């Protein structure tokens, strides 16, 4: 049942957080933070759908406030989480939060989040796995596995021979150390998404550098959520 590897005792002791629930509050803040990082643009409106235990027990655990707090960039120990809904309204960001009770195959604590900015509409599926740890499972229908513990690049590109080696060349030029790399595509007509995770910080400049490679359509940087030992 436990598909997750807990490597560190700091996954168990800690985090320091605003209560009342590590999976419903702290985990939800981190899902929000990951979403903010994925959008990387001024959020104009957001639709949040809560599933399973997030729907059942989310309101009493401040899951709504926590997700909104994360979307605004608050950390899980930030005292403003309590007032996140009011602050969200003050910022005039449109939002709706629905609880979905119909049967589904999502894990226990799942949120489906649709964010819109001037440029983008993005759908993210995030899961809180306990102890404040999370996993982003899907971005716009593409399976990913983002825990927020690494820096992640999502590069959307055309299917062309040699393009991956051009991308990797640029990455090694900038001394980025790759942890995992995975390319996915739904069908032959679709663009490919190559998802690469790193140990070290990715300079935001990398976005334009990578996008300038021929046949790269788009580059997204998803920053690490936080240093565990800081």
């Amino acid at each position, binding site marked *: *049942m*436990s598909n*997750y*590897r*807990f*490597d*560190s*005792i*700091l*996954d*168990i*002791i*800690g*985090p*320091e*957080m*605003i*209560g*009342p*629930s*590590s*999976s419903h*509050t*702290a985990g939800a803040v981190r899902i929000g933070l990951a979403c903010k990082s994925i959008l990387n643009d001024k959020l104009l409106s957001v639709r949040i759908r809560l599933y*399973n*235990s997030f729907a*059942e*027990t*989310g*309101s*009493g*655990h*401040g899951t709504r406030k926590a997700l909104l707090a994360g979307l605004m960039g608050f950390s899980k*120990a930030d*005292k403003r*989480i*309590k007032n996140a809904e009011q602050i969200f309204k003050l910022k005039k960001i449109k939002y709706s939060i629905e609880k979905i009770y119909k049967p589904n195959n999502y894990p*226990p*604590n799942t949120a489906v989040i649709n964010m819109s900015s001037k440029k983008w509409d993005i759908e993210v599926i995030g899961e809180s*796995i*306990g*102890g*404040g740890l999370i996993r982003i499972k899907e971005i716009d229908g593409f399976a990913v596995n983002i825990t927020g513990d690494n820096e992640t690049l999502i590069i959307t590109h055309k299917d062309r021979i040699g393009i991956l080696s051009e991308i990797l060349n640029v990455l090694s030029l900038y001394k980025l150390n790759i942890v995992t790399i995975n390319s996915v595509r739904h069908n032959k007509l679709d663009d490919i998404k190559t998802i690469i995770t790193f140990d070290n910080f990715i300079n935001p400049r990398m976005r334009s550098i990578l996008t300038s490679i021929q046949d790269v359509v788009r580059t997204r940087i998803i920053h690490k959520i936080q*240093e*565990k*030992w*800081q």
Partner: protein
Amino acid sequence: MNRYDYNSASELIKILKKHNASFPEFILERESKLFGADKNQIQAKLKNYIKTMRDSINAGLKKRMESVCLDNEAKKLLKNKLRIINALEYEILYSAISVSEYNCSMGKIVACPTAGSCGILPAVIIPVSKKYKFDDGLLIKALLIAGEIGRIVASTVSISGARGGCMAECGTASAMTAGAVAYLFGGSTEQIFNAATLSLKNNLGLTCDPVAGLVEVPCVKRNGFKALEALAAAQMSLAGINSAIPFDEVVQTMKEVADNMPDIYKETSEGGLAIAESGLAYKKKMS
């Protein structure tokens, strides 16, 4: 083979023997390698957690909590004059409830392993260290040990109520705390894991059925009970009482129980106390 690549108590005990290493020192070394951080950075972080733990005990005793189901329970204990249990146990009991209530009112706590079970570990190690004059250096080591016990459970089963019921949260917390106390009083690695086993075994099948879906009923008072349970487990272990079933087997059993536990007892509030007549009445009152 990487010496840190293990996921059971028996392997860990073997590795410690082979390298003639101390339990907390070995974990500290692994953590520092894992994060590429200095040992003192990890220690500083844990020291900070100890401070937050202390603060959360005190803050919970001061703060007035607004709740439909709870009525500032820690304060009642603090004011009460009748002491059936001894002074240390009494302090442990109200401290656990205090941290837990503070957590419910969106106060700042240290999850250990989760927020729902955050009252247990601090409520035991802080009063115990005060009474027996253990310094923060020793408490940091106790946290390393508690964390490692929880990590092994999390890697094999889960520490999430939504996956394993309350056994995964308060059960794990109680085991972690029992191990930490056994360490503080000079227990061997075997005695530490034995104390954790006694606690964990006492939690098999424990449901997560929170009333109205809140971390309040039965969570807050359960934190109090579990803190005392951990103390009892450490006491038994240090008296030479051995668990008939060893730690790794109990963890495997916990996994079997979690896998077979119906979803209504996994934090969904669709069964147990959550659907008792009064449980449903509280829910109605809140909505």
